[in-house]
Structures are given as C-alpha cells and as structure tokens.
C-alpha cells in the first residue's frame, strides 16, 4: 500500500473537556485542566502530591452503570474516546475483518488490580470478582473499543510507558501499509490518578510538588519547572487509507505521513542526555515519510515539565534540525492537560491534527521565565501557521528509553 494514510475521526476525554471540541477550545483559551484532588485518600495516606489533571467529565456521566461496572476506568475513558472518534468518522459500511485497533495504556487497570487486592485482604479470595482479570489486563482498553465497533482485523496494545500511544499510531500506519486492513482506531488511555502510582512517581521525584498552585504546576520550558503533573483520559483517532476514505466520501482532517520508534538502551528512567535515541526516532520518521527536516514548521513536544526531560528533548531536536529549529513553532500542551502517560501521545496527535488542519498552533501556558538552556520558539498564544499546508511532528518518550515520533501534514487531495 503506497498511497496516503489519512485521519478521518477524532475522539477524546481529557482534563480540559469531555470531547474533542471542548478540549480543543479550552486548550486554545489557555485553560489549565489541573486541580486539587478532593478525594479522601489524599489526607488518609498523606499523599505528598495533592493535585492532578482529572477528567473534566466523569465516565459515569457518559456510560451506563453496567459498562462502568465491567470496565476499569482506563477502559471507560477508551470507550468514550473510541465511540466519539468512530461516530465522527461516520463509517457505516466496512467489513469487520478490515478494521483493526491499536490502542495503548501505559499502566493498565491499576484501579481494578489494587481494589481487588484490598478485597482479597479484607474479605478473602471468594470475594475477588471474576471480572478482575479482564478488567485489569492492559489490552482491556483496546478490547473495549474493538468489541464496541466489531473490529475483527486484530486488536493490539503497544505498551511503552509514556510513548505508548504514539507508538500505537506508528503501528497503525504499519497495519494499513500491509494492506490487511483499511481502517484502524488508534490511540491510548490512562486512569492512574490513584494513591499508589502518585506515591510511586512522587518517590522518584518525577512529579511537581507545587501543591499550593496546581494550575501553574505543569510548566514545560520554565526555569522553575519541578516535575510533571499526572493527567487522565483518552484520545482516539480513526485512520484509514486515503483510497478507502475517498471511496466512502469521508471528511479528511489531515494526512498521517509517517511514524518511527527507537529505544535508548541507556537507563531505565533517565533520558539519554545526548538525545541520540530520540534524535534517531525523529530522523527515521522524516525518512519514512520522505520529509525534509526543513519542511517541519510545528512540533507538539513531549515536554513534560521535568527539569532533565525538557532539556534532553531540546538536545535531540537541535541535533536533527540545527538552525531550522528556530523556525519551528513549538507547543507544549501538557502545560494545560497534564501528562496522560499512555494517553498523552494520542491527545497530542489530535492537537497536531487540528493544528495542521486549522493552521493554528495551540498555546503553551505557564512559561513565565523560559529556561535559557531551551531556546526554542515556544508558542504562548494561539498562533496562525499561515495559509500554506503545514507539516508537523508529535513526539513521545517513555520510561524504559522508548522514543516514538509521528509526522502529520495538512491534507491536500
């Protein structure tokens, strides 16, 4: 399959909104989705970090009680985003065998797992519910979508920490290129705002501790950034071959040009300070798409707001783009959404799709004093990217040394 691959449906539920439109509008308005956690367990366990990016719309307000009962929260978010994307794509006549799912999570069904362990300890093994395993398995979110839309062309889950859902998009391109399927629902989900993951991330000093000012805690590129902010939610994209999309008269948001995945083999959590592995992912994505580095004019950066991570990404980008980096409008949207871990790449790919379609780069908030060690052109207010087609890039990196990059371009028929 040598033709183009295009994006024809979008779905999301995020700390900024319960769907794509409300999320995008809040993002452009410079809103923060980060707030203080009011749950009783914060005080009970004396959790050191007392804020996060909680889903703006509760899953229970969208799904039926039975859907909520049988799905881990990570799968609930996935189902909400997947349904929105599928409805948006308006695919009414496709063979189920020609539809695949590539849907990720970074952590999986952590609520289900830990609730079940509490039940075991308090009430014994007989009370551990039989749905526990299918609810906690990391392929649960992908299967929730696959069963809902009757995808029989293969349902897979790339798990690579915070790079997971960008890797899912890269894998989706590969699936379409084989010619085995015509449509893939791709993306990722996360629901890990639970006392254990928060405590664990906090104990490795990965999280911001700005408890007194949650809305300004996620501040990529700012000199006073002190860690990332956990977020929850999901993003889903319907992608298909251009041929298939045109044949059914679909509306096309953008072209998904290429993707690439590399690994550092450097350190389990620390990024390679030279950015070599990340740079290789960028170069490979450019090569796969036949895109010159100078064609890239917008980047949705990984930029989680950790002191070392933001610099490592800059180093990688500088290595590839050189002086051209000064001509690239860089958006760090985790400043508004927080870090959705396994869902981050998906929602950032959605932002990139909308950016190239609408020719607007979304803003980065909370950059009060830009770090002089990261001299990129940070988009601080929504920026007009000009009338000409835009070629953009979305990056994701994850614990384990995972690097994943996708390139997205304005669609021209």
């Amino acid at each position, binding site marked *: 399959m040598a033709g183009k691959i295009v994006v024809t449906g979008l779905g999301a539920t995020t700390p900024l909104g319960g769907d794509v439109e409300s999320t995008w509008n809040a993002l452009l308005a410079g809103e923060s989705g980060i707030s203080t956690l009011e749950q009783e367990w914060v005080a009970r366990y004396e959790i050191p970090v007392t804020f996060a990016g909680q889903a703006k719309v509760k899953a229970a307000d969208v799904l*039926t*009680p*039975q859907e909520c*009962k049988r799905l881990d929260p990570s799968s609930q978010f996935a189902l909400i985003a997947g349904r929105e994307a599928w409805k948006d794509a308006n695919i009414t006549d496709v063979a189920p065998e020609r539809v695949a799912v590539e849907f990720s999570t970074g952590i999986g069904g952590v609520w289900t797992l830990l609730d079940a362990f509490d039940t075991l300890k308090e009430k014994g093994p*007989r*009370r551990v*519910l*039989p*749905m526990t395993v*299918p609810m906690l398995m990391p392929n649960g979110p992908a299967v929730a979508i696959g069963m809902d839309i009757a995808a029989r062309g293969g349902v897979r889950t790339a798990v690579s920490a915070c790079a997971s859902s960008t890797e899912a998009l890269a894998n989706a391109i590969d699936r379409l290129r084989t010619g085995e399927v015509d449509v893939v629902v791709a993306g990722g989900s996360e629901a890990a705002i639970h006392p254990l993951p928060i405590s664990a991330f906090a104990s490795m000093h990965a999280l911001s501790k700005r408890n007194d000012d949650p809305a300004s805690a996620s501040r990529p590129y700012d000199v006073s950034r002190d860690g990332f902010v956990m977020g929850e939610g999901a993003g889903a994209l319907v992608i298909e071959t251009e041929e298939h999309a045109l044949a059914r008269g679909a509306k096309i948001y953008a072209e998904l040009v290429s993707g690439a995945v590399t690994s550092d083999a450097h350190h389990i959590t620390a990024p390679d300070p030279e950015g070599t592995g990340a740079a290789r992912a960028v170069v490979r994505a450019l090569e796969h798409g036949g895109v010159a580095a100078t064609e890239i004019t917008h980047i949705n950066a990984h930029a989680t707001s950790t002191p070392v991570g933001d610099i490592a990404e800059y180093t990688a980008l500088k290595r590839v783009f050189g002086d051209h980096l000064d001509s690239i409008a860089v958006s760090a949207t985790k400043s508004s959404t927080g870090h959705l871990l396994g869902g981050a790449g998906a929602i950032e790919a959605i932002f990139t799709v909308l950016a190239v379609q609408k020719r607007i780069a979304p803003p980065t908030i909370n950059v009060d004093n830009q770090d002089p060690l990261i001299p990129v052109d940070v988009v601080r207010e929504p920026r007009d990217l000009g009338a000409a087609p835009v070629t953009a890039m979305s990056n994701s990196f994850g614990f384990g040394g995972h690097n994943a990059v996708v390139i997205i371009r304005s669609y021209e028929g």
Partner: protein
Amino acid sequence: MAFSQDEVLAGLAEIVNDETGIATESVQMDKSFTDDLDIDSISMMTIVVNAEDKFGVKIPDEEVKNLITVGDAVNFIVAAQG
C-alpha cells in the same frame, strides 16, 4: 433472622439488576438465568458471590451449575439459611 422466599427473590433481583442492568421485575422465579435473562458465567459468579454476602450463606461452586432458574437459586438460599 432468616429471609423469606419473597425477600430472597427481591434481594436477588436487586443483585441481578446491579450486575447486569436487567429490570428487577424481570427477575421471576421461573426465569432461566442463561436462556431467559442472558446472564453469562462471569456475571453468574459475581451474582453468586454477592448473594452469599447479602444472605449470609455459602453456595458451593459445584452447586452453581444446578441453579438453572431464579427459583432454583432462591430455594437454595432459603434452605441454606438453616
């Protein structure tokens, strides 16, 4: 204090409704869990565990396969209260 047959039926109907969304009034003594109510084995095990908890009885795994109808389950629970 033992639960009456009517009380067990009403309680079981609530458990079934909570697990599956099936209306409580559909949970009648003569209804088959699988053929009439379309309850799968995983839901059935969840219902059994919740019923044990609610009525303070034990329903052995080897007994569950004999509980074809709602009435079978209600009668078993009433008898098991001892």
